[in-house]
């Protein structure tokens, strides 16, 4: 197979941190298989290519595009549409593209609050209160920057997506197994999973993979993990009053955090059958609080100072409500 005949591969980052790219490179020598089987046509973090190069490609000419990052601004959305048009398989890669992830937490704040935080806090020197302007007249001509949306969207909220690969970032061994599968499909040795499937992850919850002992939970106080002097290494963290998101979170990571002694924060997103991730956790946490007295329950709940941050850390943009009223009311509903 000559280089020209190899199927084309692309990877793009929208509103994301770059961790997904690192996770792809962490598949180590498997990256050579990617290179042997694919021609990389567009991957801004790894190679030089321009948007116009992608535009010049025939439609559907890229076999596989891994798209990470949420849709934060006009540019993200434009490239999402472009890559959808040029790709046969578009994968929402990583938590940001699947469900908004940490950038999606900005959906709790208004556009003005976000801009203020970025341009005018104590740690920013900006005495003239300069703010970005979408159109700016320079002597050399007019400069435009992409419009910042009030609400961050997930990839499938702007274009149809073929597969979802969750995780923040997706674990490298999961990426390696997906790469293996795709290569097998190319050689006619395997078939693709059904459209819309979640790939590179399990179907159940992190609790199913967690080796910690589970009993009947009776919680009388929630603790922040750093406030505890002793954490039982073998007992369920939620049982010890540590708010662990394992009960609603998709497995696939191998329960890395609870094994290491830290609570699951939910980066693999909702498990199969969970429509609203946070709602599922409200159900779970509500079940295990050991009190029937409203005042006492409220006092126990005070142990979770930021419930939305706890229950929607990765999933706010992908949740049923998507964004707070402050966010969607700010400057129109883009």
């Amino acid at each position, binding site marked *: 197979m000559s280089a020209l005949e190899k199927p084309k591969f692309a990877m793009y980052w929208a509103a994301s941190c770059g961790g997904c790219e690192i996770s792809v490179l962490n598949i180590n020598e498997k990256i050579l298989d990617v290179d042997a089987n694919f021609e990389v046509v567009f991957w801004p973090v790894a190679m030089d290519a321009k948007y116009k190069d992608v535009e010049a490609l025939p439609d559907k000419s890229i076999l596989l595009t891994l798209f990470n990052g949420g849709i934060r601004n006009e540019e993200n959305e434009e490239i999402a549409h472009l890559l959808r048009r040029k790709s046969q398989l578009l994968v929402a890669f990583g938590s940001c593209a699947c469900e908004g992830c940490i950038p999606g937490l900005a959906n*709790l704040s208004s556009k003005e609050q976000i801009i203020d935080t970025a341009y005018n806090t104590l740690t920013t020197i900006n005495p003239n209160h300069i703010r970005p302007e979408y159109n700016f007249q320079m002597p050399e001509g007019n400069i435009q920057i992409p419009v910042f949306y009030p609400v961050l969207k*997930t990839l*499938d*909220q*702007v274009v149809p*997506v073929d597969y*979802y690969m969750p995780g923040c970032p997706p674990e490298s061994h999961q990426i390696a197994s997906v790469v293996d599968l795709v290569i097998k499909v190319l050689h006619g040795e395997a078939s693709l999973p059904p459209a*819309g*499937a*979640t790939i590179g992850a399990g179907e159940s919850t992190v609790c199913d993979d967690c080796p910690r002992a589970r009993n009947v939970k009776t919680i009388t106080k929630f603790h922040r993990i750093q406030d505890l002097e002793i954490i039982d290494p073998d007992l369920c963290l939620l049982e010890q009053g540590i708010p662990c998101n394992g009960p609603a979170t998709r497995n696939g990571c191998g329960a890395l955090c609870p094994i290491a002694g830290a609570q699951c924060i939910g980066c693999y997103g*909702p498990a199969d*059958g*969970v*429509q*609203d*991730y*946070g*709602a*599922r956790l*409200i*159900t779970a*946490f*509500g*079940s295990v*609080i050991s*009190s*029937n007295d*409203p005042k006492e*329950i*409220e006092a126990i*709940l005070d142990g*979770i100072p*930021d*419930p*939305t941050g706890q*229950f*929607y850390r990765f999933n706010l943009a*992908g*949740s*049923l*409500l*998507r*964004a*707070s*009223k*402050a966010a*969607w*009311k700010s400057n129109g*509903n883009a």
Partner: protein
Amino acid sequence: MSETFEPVIIGFTCNWCSYRAADLAGTARIKYPPNVRLIRLMCSGRLDPTFVMKAFANGADGVMITGCHPGECHYIEQNYKALRRYLLLRRVLAQMGIEPGRIKLVWASAAEGVRLAQEITTFVEDVRALGPLEWPDWKHKNGHHKTVESIALQEVTA
């Protein structure tokens, strides 16, 4: 707005108490505003907070959850779970900008038709005073993409 705002309220009722209280209100010809759309569950403990999120996301202005009085749950203690979930849910909704006054938990036994009708009347007025919620009708799929989409797909192919 020239016309009076009529809030849309979703009421989740328990098969063993409040649903029958609503029934009793009907047979006794006790009137309550038609703003509330009652949905019968087997127990207030069946109330998945997802239902409440979905109600607000799809245009409800208020949600009422009703169940058996403490200690009287047909399934022993599930109404206590409903209570805890309600208290936690209210905190999350407040952070999302949904006023705590838009969600209410009411205990009503099967004999309390009058009381339930009164609670509904009060709640409708409270929500009316808060005004329309008008949560955006997000143009694309609601909720978790994959689940909703695959269900829709199954319906089409079936």
